[in-house]
């Protein structure tokens, strides 16, 4: 690809927001202390949940897989430290629903003893498919938040040709700084991870996109690239604008290409990976370590010591808050993710999962302003980075016109929250879209279920009809047989009587004759007696 260095484009809309990142980047990343108890949700990724490999009472080592799956779109979960499985059951996990889900609870033995690791010091000696398999076994998912299994993403299929690998270090959402700190402190690992992914998908170029509000990160990575004299990896500094970190928006900014509405970046020769994922790939291949920890930003005005912590997956959020100096007295709201796309948590007794990038503690006491009717000002359409018509979508969602709303490309909405941010009527627009999306998915599930039930009902009906017919046929045959037998019998009887009547008659006649003779003889003898 020939691109004149630094030429950039714009996507539609977007917002300039206060970044509020400085509060959590003052101190380097600290390592969280080893927790006593870890809660590991079995499903932390998009796709199928794995099957359990352990049972209560089992001893596990750090890095040992505790689930596995034969499904393609899946990722295993690993024990983050050595210890004992003390419980397997339903526990609350960070999810907007607040519902419980199957978790494995591990009690740490304090040894933090690793399982035997199999590092691959020279990734280029292995084939891309072997490396993909290693990535899969390491349980790596997209760490930008979506948690899609990386092994699937780096396998765009035989038809797609990936030209450029884009490493997303944009981190456009306010408050979040875990990627920024990761790039500053793990620049070398990041570059190594980029090279590995680049090799797997045989991309000729690699662009690392970073917003211009992270000069330290840009500097750190540029230094490493210079040291290693890598010519195919380039750092691109892009202007700060929310939501440039969105996959489709970033592609537009860097390449002026647009991802098709129902397509993937691989359709246009691109692959986008988060910086955290690249570091995880480096760890998985070069060190042989599975994904058992991540960097989480603890920030907001409601926490004493905003900072970034490297934390084992499964550590409770309450522990992280404690290690960040605890809550401020006026802390009012706990959010997972950023202020734009995150969701509210009801409690802090929830584990950190692979997709958790930020815990935001707010201290706003003010009640949310009342919602007013839509005045059709179209401010939302002006800022929408997906070029949708948010107010139309809003009307359709609120009147449950789910067919129509899909014609207006509801599923292209990335839920960035720009529309709701600028809405002068304070309408919680994104919530309407989320409602419509989950409702449509639910209807699709119901449709599949009812189609299945119809097939089963029809099959049963057909079976019953067949049985009925068979029974009727059997009955008819039996009847026929009986009738035939009857007919045969009566016919036989008739014949019998016809042939047997004569001898009977003759017998009777003979008997009568004999009686007659006897009578005559008697009469004659009587006469003889009288004559005497």
């Amino acid at each position, binding site marked *: 690809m020939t691109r004149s260095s630094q030429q950039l484009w714009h996507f539609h809309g977007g917002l300039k927001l206060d970044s509020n990142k400085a509060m959590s980047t003052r101190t380097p990343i600290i390592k969280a202390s080893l927790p006593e108890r870890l809660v590991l949700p079995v*499903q932390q990724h998009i796709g199928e949940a794995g099957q359990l490999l352990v049972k209560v009472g089992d001893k596990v080592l750090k890095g040992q897989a505790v689930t596995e799956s034969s499904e393609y779109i899946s990722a295993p979960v690993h024990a983050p430290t050595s210890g004992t499985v003390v419980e397997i059951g339903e526990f609350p*996990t960070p*999810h*907007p*629903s607040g*519902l419980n*889900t199957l978790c494995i609870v591990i009690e740490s033995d304090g040894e933090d003893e690793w399982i035997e690791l199999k590092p691959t010091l020279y990734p280029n000696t292995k084939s891309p498919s072997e490396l993909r398999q290693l990535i899969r076994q390491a349980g790596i998912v997209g760490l930008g938040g979506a948690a899609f299994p990386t092994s699937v993403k780096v396998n765009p299929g035989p038809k797609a040709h990936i030209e450029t690998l884009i490493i997303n270090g944009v981190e456009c959402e306010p408050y979040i700084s875990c990627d920024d700190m990761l790039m500053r402190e793990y620049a070398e690992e990041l570059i190594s991870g980029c090279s590995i992914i680049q090799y797997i998908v045989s991309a000729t170029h690699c662009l690392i996109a970073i917003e211009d509000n992270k000069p330290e990160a840009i500097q750190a990575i540029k230094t490493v690239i210079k040291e290693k004299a890598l010519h195919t990896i380039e750092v691109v500094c892009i202007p700060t604008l929310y939501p440039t970190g969105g996959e489709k928006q970033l592609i537009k900014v860097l390449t002026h290409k647009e991802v098709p509405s129902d397509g993937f970046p691989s359709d246009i020769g691109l692959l986008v990976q988060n910086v955290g994922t690249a570091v995880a790939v480096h760890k998985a291949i070069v060190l042989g370590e599975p994904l058992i920890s991540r960097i989480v930003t603890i920030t907001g005005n409601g926490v004493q010591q905003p900072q970034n912590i490297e934390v084992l997956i499964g550590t409770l959020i309450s522990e992280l808050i404690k290690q960040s100096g605890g809550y401020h007295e006026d802390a009012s709201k706990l959010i997972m993710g950023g202020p734009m796309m995150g969701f509210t948590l009801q409690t802090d007794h929830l584990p950190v999962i692979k997709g958790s990038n930020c815990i935001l503690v707010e201290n706003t006491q003010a009640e949310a302003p*009342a*919602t*007013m*009717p*839509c*005045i059709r000002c179209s401010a939302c359409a002006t800022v929408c980075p997906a070029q949708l018509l948010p107010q139309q979508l809003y009307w359709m*969602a*609120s009147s*449950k016109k789910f*067919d129509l709303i899909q014609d207006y490309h509801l599923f292209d909405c990335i839920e960035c929250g720009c529309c709701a941010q600028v809405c002068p*009527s304070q*309408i*919680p627009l994104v*919530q*309407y879209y*989320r*409602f419509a*999306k*989950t*409702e449509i*998915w*639910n*209807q699709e*599930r*119901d449709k599949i*279920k*009812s*189609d*299945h*039930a*119809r097939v*089963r*009902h029809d*099959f*049963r009906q057909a079976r019953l009809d067949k049985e009925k017919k068979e029974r009727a046929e059997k009955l008819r045959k039996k009847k026929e047989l009986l009738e035939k037998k009857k007919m045969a019998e009566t016919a036989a009887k008739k014949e019998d009587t016809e042939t047997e009547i004569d001898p009977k008659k003759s017998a009777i006649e003979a008997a009568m004759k004999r009686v007659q003779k006897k009578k005559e003889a008697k009469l004659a003898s009587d006469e003889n007696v009288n004559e005497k």
Partner: protein
Amino acid sequence: MSILVAIITLTVISTIFGVLLGYTSVKFHVEGDPIVDKIDALLPQTQCGQCTYPGCRPYAEAITSGEAGINQCPPGGEATMLALSDLLGIEPVALDEEHADEPQKTVVYIDEQICIGCTLCIQACPVDAILGAAKQMHTIIENECTGCDLCIPPCPVDCIHIKTVKPEQDTWRWSLPASTETAPKA
């Protein structure tokens, strides 16, 4: 003279079209009623009979013939009623009051300690979701159960019970935000 031409022309035209129509009605004859199929496709296929018809298809037939309304399907709830109104171009009708709430998904389960293996429930199940044999314990295949509850009345020992399907994270739905109508007008 000209009137004769007109009459002849019209007669010829109508004959041609008559033949054409007659031919197409034989050639492109459709077995069954496609409208019934379309309605049937929208119904939830629980075969529960709560609409007073013996199954989803008979109800679809009754709607087609104008005998039944579109608001008689409790398991389908408002969504099915709206879909039917959309399909048939009928004004939406309010659901019966007792079914006005969102239908809750349920399945049944057999208390296997009590089951005597009479097979009556197997005969009642419209989707073959009960497994068992005479004098053997029966069990429900939960994934196949539509929650029609038709197996409950025939059970002589009352060992079949209803349980609601627990929502899970992947089937959980966001709720519609409180309507703007309730907000103070500007």
